[in-house]
């Protein structure tokens, strides 16, 4: 760690830049609880925590995207209450987003100077744009691309560098970078770090969010660990090791109660064998046996390939390699699901992650949303839908799942997230398929609905179904699963049975393939390909 020796400090002497005091933020559930945090001038401060610990929420509040429910912030000693991103930017606070905010069809130069494109007559001065863009590109080591290249011709990594370049080109006092290196090559990372250090030496405070331990040890001066919306520790990077950080992130298991007991298992038998399943850019070489009567949890960080794996099993996406074999034909024929229709025909159902855009017919009624998947069973030989039966069945399952509704014919958009989620689950329960996949089943759902959903998942397994649950909440996984596998950077990083569950082990596994010695993520291939300038 030679680089960290170059830290110009005894950082304890630096003045406080941002002081966050007792911040609370509640969406459907409390996300930040009485969180206090201090950022000093001229330091790179790493923020760590598992999924849902509150890192992004905290940063969004600092950057003015969200407003806190309670608590105060002081910036350079003055009270700081940004109402929107613009207010934050005016104060000199900028965030580089994970999701990029660029115009793909405009050129790099136009993107970089978007806020200041033309002269006072609104005419674009391309010479000035070009000069400015070239300077900024040099800053982040992209001197091999021409400023006229359309943004969409660049890989994600370069786009991110350009986003960073545009942010640091302006006078800033506080910079937030969220997982900036995910798609970068090593030389690009080096350049990025050089820029960050330069900024730090100019007195800018930098909040650096990353899952990568090695990077944090390279770049950060201090590290803060969040857990369940609270700050559990802030330490100088010199005084803390990886093991301690992981321990801090996972916390104490006893503080959470496991409300659902696994129950007596019906005899379990293998229903599906997944072999060497791969999808470029998402996951590779997944081998799994799926058993009836068992809940299999899939853990891992966001972006580790969990959602893609479920979608591929179901047929929503198509795998590039590997096969599925089903018990229905004694595992004789290797198959791949090429459409959800095929997935359902083979007995697989998927409760999708993004229920609003991919699951529900938002403007349509609860009734219509529930009955969508079972219409063929409700029709006579003329394909006429038996509306009475449709209504009865929907009401019955809605009551069984405790879906709260005033009018079953009212648009489902008027229901709460939990009830929407239960409606989506109801749709699949009615189909009575042997294999059920749940992607983040309790996202955006209140505590009571969450418990009910967990019970439902367990019930399905007890009825002899094979269930797979993907969740970002380790607690949730440990609550509902009989067995957990962990994906890390698209690869299987561990398998645990109930006896060996521990938050710490799961966390440790989910970080396993993110260090530098492991093969880089597939996106880097793209990066290498488009090094040659297109113009």
């Amino acid at each position, binding site marked *: 760690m030679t680089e960290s020796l170059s830290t110009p400090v005894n950082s304890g002497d630096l003045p406080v830049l941002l002081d966050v005091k007792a911040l609370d933020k509640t969406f459907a559930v409390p996300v930040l609880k009485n969180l206090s945090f201090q950022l000093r001038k001229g330091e790179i401060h790493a923020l760590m925590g598992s999924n849902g610990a509150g890192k992004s929420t905290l940063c969004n509040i600092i950057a003015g995207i969200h407003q806190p429910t309670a608590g105060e912030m002081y910036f350079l000693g003055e009270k700081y209450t940004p109402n929107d991103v613009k207010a934050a930017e005016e104060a000199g606070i900028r965030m580089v987003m994970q999701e990029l905010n660029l115009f793909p069809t405009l050129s790099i130069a136009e993107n970089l100077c978007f806020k200041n494109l033309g002269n006072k007559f609104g005419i674009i001065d391309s010479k000035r744009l070009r000069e400015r863009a070239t300077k900024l590109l040099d800053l982040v080591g992209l001197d091999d691309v021409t400023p006229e290249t359309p943004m969409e011709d660049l890989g994600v990594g370069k786009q991110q560098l350009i986003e960073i370049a545009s942010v640091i080109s302006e006078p800033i006092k506080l910079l937030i970078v969220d997982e900036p290196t995910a798609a970068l090559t090593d030389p690009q990372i080096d350049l990025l770090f050089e820029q960050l250090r330069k900024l730090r030496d100019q007195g800018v405070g930098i909040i650096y969010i990353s899952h990568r331990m090695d990077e944090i040890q390279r770049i950060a001066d201090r590290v803060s660990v969040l857990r369940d919306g609270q700050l559990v520790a802030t330490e100088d990077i010199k005084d803390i090791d990886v093991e301690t950080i992981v321990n801090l992130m996972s916390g104490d298991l006893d503080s959470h109660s496991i409300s659902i007991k696994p129950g007596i298992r019906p005899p379990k038998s293998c229903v599906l064998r997944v072999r060497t399943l791969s999808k470029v850019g998402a996951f590779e070489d997944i081998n799994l046996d799926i058993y009836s009567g068992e809940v299999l949890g899939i853990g891992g960080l966001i972006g580790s390939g969990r959602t893609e794996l479920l979608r591929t099993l179901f047929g929503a996406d198509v795998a590039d390699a590997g096969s599925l074999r089903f018990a229905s034909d004694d595992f004789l024929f290797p198959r791949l699901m090429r459409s959800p229709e095929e997935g359902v025909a083979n007995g697989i159902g998927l409760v999708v992650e993004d229920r609003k855009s991919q699951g529900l017919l938002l403007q349509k009624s609860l009734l219509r949303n529930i009955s969508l998947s079972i219409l063929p069973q409700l029709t006579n030989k003329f394909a006429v839908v038996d509306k009475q039966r449709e209504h009865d069945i929907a009401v019955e399952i809605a009551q069984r799942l405790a879906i709260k509704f005033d009018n079953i*014919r009212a648009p489902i958009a008027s229901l709460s997230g939990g009830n929407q989620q239960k409606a989506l689950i109801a749709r699949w329960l009615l189909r009575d398929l042997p294999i059920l996949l749940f992607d983040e089943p309790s996202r955006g759902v209140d505590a009571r609905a969450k418990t009910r959903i967990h019970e439902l998942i367990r019930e399905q397994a007890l009825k002899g179904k094979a269930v797979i649950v993907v969740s970002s909440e380790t607690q949730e996984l440990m609550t509902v699963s009989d067995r957990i596998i962990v994906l890390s950077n698209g690869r299987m990083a561990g398998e645990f049975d109930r006896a060996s569950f521990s938050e710490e082990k799961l966390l440790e596994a989910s970080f396993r393939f993110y260090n530098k010695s492991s093969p880089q993520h597939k996106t880097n291939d793209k990066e290498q390909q488009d090094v040659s300038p297109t113009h």
Partner: protein
Amino acid sequence: MPGLKKLHLPWNSLGLIGVLIALILFFSFMSDYFFSTVTFRTLVNQIPALTVISVGMTYVLLIGGIDLSVGSVMALSAAVVGVAIADFHLPVLIAIVCGLAVGFIFGVTSGFVSSHWKIPSFVVTLGMLEIARGGSYLVTQSETKYIGDPVAFIGDPVPVVGISAALIAAVSVVIVAQWLLSKTIFGRYMIAIGTNEEAVRLAGINPVSWKIVVFAIAGLLAGLGGVFQLGYLQSADPNAGIGLELSAIAAVVIGGTSLSGGRGSVVNSFFGVLIIAVMQTGLAQLGVSESSKRIITGLVIIAAVLFDQYREPLAARLSGKNKRIPTFDDN
């Protein structure tokens, strides 16, 4: 609302009926000759082609697509039937089947190309519009084919009733199409696809085949429209139906079908057709100048859609409820 149920009219047809009545009253007031059975008979015997084409357009808009080719396909189908009768001396019924087949094939092609290769239906059917128009010039050698008596039975008024066989068939199509939409699984899938196609796909239903079916129906109905047109004119006009797709879209949109899909009604599209027909007849009887006719037609289209947009809050106020008007599909 027991009273409304007995009327057997979809609850939100009321606004359209209101517009229709207002127009009829207006023209009756303005012209001495408008309010007569002769006028109404004449009027309804003119609309079969536009009616069936609007039915097809309703389906296509429901699934979030659009079919710009209907006018040209109608002309081509009529041309094929006309040439089959006049030049090849085929029996009328067989010629009609040929015409319908042409429409069907165009529909299937549009549907397949747009849903299978995920090309916007706007573009695909724009291409089909040109192809079908070229086809109709080709088949007729750019000349109007006069057929005369053999096809008169389609368009001429049936004695006693005073309305044509084509109209009876067109109204039957409206009824069957509305029944398909509101009672069958096919209708449910159309609405669901128009609302959120990805959600339908992820519910394990293949939207592609359903979309092809919808375009096939629209094409078939365009072909049927061609047959009606042929019966009405007793001749096949290669230039028939230029701009008809826009009239159909106007009728359908007046009927409250959403251009972005997921909401619509065939019966209401029929009311839209009637509104357009009443306007054209009324304005013609008044002898209003062409320029004013067009301006007035445009204004009525916009007004009808505006009215439709604010229908729900308006109806809520009328019925004394603040919200929770049942959505259309749950009638």
